[in-house]
């Protein structure tokens, strides 16, 4: 009986998710689409919990729904007035895309069934369970992220860094919001310290329970978003130089740790078993700060105030001055 109830629960949850995604993508009203997307992220977090992936549930709620939602809502503000899409005259291509989508749906479903029927493939889970004792942590997801597949995570930090460099290079940050109402400011004042403590807890607990650098970094980034909404222009980020250091701290510490274990006749990032736990914690602290800084800068949407002065070399300024004079003449 309880099994049947679970199937019913799964059907309702999966149906809701697909329905929500449908409306979020199909709607012509951008605002509605973005808000439904945040709801979709929260439903996905429930699905991750249902499928026994609590690390992902935390990350999805904080990053997938939280930070991505904040980014999209901030972008929505720029789109005011352009919300409605032009009525489309491309009925033929729309039909073609629909047909293709149905074909793809059928093909992928067939592929999925096929994959599950032949599911006796190689699984990496056994290997992880076998060597978990040597990883320095008890949480298998953290072990995979920061030990067994540490390369992936290092490169991921590099990808995040590159994306933020892109964001910084396309233009200045959005103008700051005015200081919020008394209620909002009060709420921010209450929430910020709590979130900072939660971030620290998630970072520490990641070694043996769901949590870790990504979830903690997202929590700290949420602090920045809240501060910004409360009218704090710099969003809690330190000065220009310190922010730049924070941005590269994660990759820097990761590479330094990876290289220094090579002095002990080990491969790059192959931590010695007895101090692996400490090394992972050091890397995670650095990664948390970098991810938080990166996501906060991403939310600002460009170079914060004060970065311009350093970015412009004297040569630049001369060129721009010449261009201005040319414009006047």
């Amino acid at each position, binding site marked *: 009986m309880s099994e049947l109830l679970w199937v019913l629960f799964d059907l309702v949850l*999966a149906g809701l998710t697909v329905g929500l995604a449908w409306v979020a993508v199909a709607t012509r009203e951008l605002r509605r689409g973005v808000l439904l997307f945040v709801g*979709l992220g929260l439903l996905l977090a429930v699905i991750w919990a249902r499928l026994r992936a609590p690390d992902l549930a935390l990350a999805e709620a904080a990053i997938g729904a939280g930070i991505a939602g904040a980014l999209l809502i901030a972008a929505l503000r720029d789109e005011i007035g352009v919300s409605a899409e*032009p009525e489309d005259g491309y009925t033929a291509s729309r039909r073609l895309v629909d047909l293709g989508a149905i074909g793809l749906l059928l093909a992928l479903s067939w592929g*999925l069934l096929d994959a599950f029927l032949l599911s006796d493939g190689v699984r990496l889970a056994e290997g992880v369970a076998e060597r978990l004792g040597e990883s320095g942590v008890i949480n298998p997801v953290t072990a995979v992220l920061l030990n067994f597949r540490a390369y992936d995570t290092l490169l991921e930090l590099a990808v995040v860094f590159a*994306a933020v460099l*892109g*964001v910084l290079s396309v233009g200045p940050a959005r103008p700051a919001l005015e200081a919020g109402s008394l209620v909002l400011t009060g709420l921010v004042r209450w929430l910020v310290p709590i979130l900072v403590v939660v971030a620290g807890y998630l970072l520490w607990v990641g070694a043996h329970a769901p949590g870790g650098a990504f979830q903690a970094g997202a929590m700290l980034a949420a602090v920045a978003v809240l501060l910004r909404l409360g009218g704090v222009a710099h969003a809690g980020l330190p000065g220009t130089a310190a922010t730049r250091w924070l941005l590269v701290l994660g990759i820097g510490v990761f590479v330094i740790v990876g290289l220094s274990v090579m002095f002990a006749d080990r491969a790059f990032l192959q931590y010695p078993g007895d101090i692996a736990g400490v090394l992972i914690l050091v890397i995670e602290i650095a990664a948390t700060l970098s991810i938080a800084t990166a996501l906060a800068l991403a939310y600002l949407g460009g170079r914060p105030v004060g970065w311009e002065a350093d970015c412009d070399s004297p040569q630049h300024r001369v060129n721009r001055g010449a261009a201005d004079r040319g414009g006047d003449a």
Partner: protein
Amino acid sequence: MLATTIIYGFAGICLFVLGLRGVLLHTTALARILALNVCGAGVFLLFVVLAYRGAGMTPDPVPHALVLTGIVVAVSATALALALARRLREIDHD
């Protein structure tokens, strides 16, 4: 083969296809970026379904780690795409 895997697996495929359709049909940058995120969510769902082994079993942590990485990369890519879209609009307005 579990009912749970079939249900969520199919839901993942639906999200992927819906997202892809949105990317192809929308004309506004923001709507496309949103649809691309739905598309990615479908891929994540498939990964997590593949890791799931049933109620009493420990799931495979490797796909979980990959999806965790994917979520963070997706949000960074979204941020970059949004920044580029904003810059494009500024250029158009000039």
